[in-house]
Structures are given as structure tokens and as C-alpha cells.
């Protein structure tokens, strides 16, 4: 009953870490129904978890009264998930490549999330309006054969 066009799902959920498992469950449902394989589903779930964790941690500093918006766009070619927070934003061009050796020596963990998203997904883009909102676009192609 539906034509072959982009399907859109929107989810708004409060910015609590306890909701991460629910978000992963949602993504699992949609990606599975869309026909992605088990490994791709794992990758998409983890990338979305990382983006949401950043919204909770960095954008909202664990204020669970704030909301995260997820928009999931499913087309014949790809699955795109847009994670939006309404926090201060940041400058993605200023991020270092993570160096786990250096990190460990400084006993300052971090910097892995965005690197992981980029490794797991086919495209990762940031669309940031400083002081207003941060959008992370995560794209997985349907026939992706990306090697890591």
C-alpha cells in the first residue's frame, strides 16, 4: 500500500543514559525490518548510541529533562539517522584523531565516540548551529562493503 519512497520515523526521548538501551532496541527493530544484516545492525546501533551518549553527556551534561530527537530516514539506498540535541554545539574540525596510548597515559579517557561513528558508518556529518542545536547525520548504505 506504500510506494517506494523514503520512510520516516521520528523519536523524541529524554536525555537519560537509561534510555540508551531503549534507543538501541528501536534502531534494531527498524534496521532489522529494513533488511540489514546482523553485523550492520550492530554497527548502526553502536553509532547511534555514541551520538546519543554525546548529546546526553556533552550537550546536556546529564540533564534528563532535556530531549533528544531521532529522525530515521529509510530509502531504497540507505538508512540515515539524524540525532539532534539543542545544546551549545562544538567544532568538529578541532577534534584530534584519538590516540589511545596518549589517552591512557593521561588517564583521560575519551575522544573515541566520533572516531567510532566514522569507522562504523558510511558517512557521518555534523550540522551545528552554535548555541542552538547539533545534528549528527549517520548514514549506512544498503550494500555497504566498507572494510575497517
Amino acid at each position, binding site marked *: 500500500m506504500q510506494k517506494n519512497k523514503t520512510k520516516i520515523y521520528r523519536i523524541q526521548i529524554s536525555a537519560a543514559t537509561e534510555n540508551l*538501551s531503549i534507543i538501541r532496541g528501536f534502531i534494531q527493530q527498524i534496521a532489522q525490518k529494513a533488511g540489514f544484516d546482523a553485523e550492520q545492525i550492530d554497527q548502526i546501533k553502536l553509532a547511534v548510541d555514541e551520538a546519543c*551518549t554525546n548529546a546526553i553527556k556533552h550537550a546536556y551534561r546529564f540533564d534528563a529533562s532535556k530531549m533528544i530527537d531521532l529522525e530515521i530516514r529509510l530509502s531504497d539506498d540507505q538508512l540515515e539517522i539524524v540525532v539532534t540535541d539543542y545544546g551549545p554545539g562544538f567544532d568538529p574540525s578541532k577534534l584530534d584523531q584519538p590516540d*589511545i596510548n596518549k589517552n591512557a597515559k593521561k588517564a583521560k579517557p575519551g575522544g573515541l565516540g566520533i572516531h567510532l561513528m566514522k569507522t562504523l558508518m558510511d558517512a557521518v556529518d555534523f550540522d551545528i548551529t552554535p548555541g542552538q542545536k547539533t545534528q549528527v547525520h549517520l548514514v549506512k548504505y544498503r550494500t555497504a562493503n566498507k572494510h575497517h
Partner: protein
Amino acid sequence: MSGFKVTRVDKGDVTVLYLSGFLDAHTVPDFEKALQEAINEKRYKIIVNFKDLDYISSAGLGVFMGFIEEVRANDGDIKLSNLSPRVFKVFDLLGFPALFEIFDDEEQAMEKFLKPE
């Protein structure tokens, strides 16, 4: 929703932490607490057994990096064992095998602590 559980078993000098469920930004504090407690008791020889862990995000991986320096400065180590292929993949993507010793099973990790050579 399997939740998360960490179970500690001390085997001689070595403390083994068994993880089950998922380790994400929500459950990380439980894991940090268990690690911190062992370290507070000056137990620096630690094996983390991942046998029943289904999922890990970078928040979980960050815990290892947060503690490893202190542990090694005290002649200890954090060794990893029994990672499922799905969980290993995440460690591997981030280059952890260069920084941590990862064993197929707990006995191998234990042996390495007992006879380091």
C-alpha cells in the same frame, strides 16, 4: 533488556570481574565502582572476563583507559578474556589489542599473571 551486572571473584592475588549484559554510558558507573573498589584494596592484578557481555560502547572502553595507568604504575595489569566476537570487534576497531592483553579464556590470562616470564 538484560541490564548489566558485574560480579567479583578474588582468586589468590588476582581479582576477576565477570561482566554480563550491556556496558554503555548508563551501566559504566557500576563497572567503575567495582574496579575502583579492587584498586582501593590494592588489588592491581585484574582480569575482566567478558563471557556474558553482549554489548559495549566507547563509554565502556573508556573505563579501561581511565584505570590502566594507575594499575600498571603499581606493577599490576588489567587483562581481558572471553570476549565474544561482537564485543571484540569494538575493541579491535579502536586499536585496543595494542594496549591491552586480550585472551581467549580466563585461564590463559591467569597463567600470564602467575608466570609472567
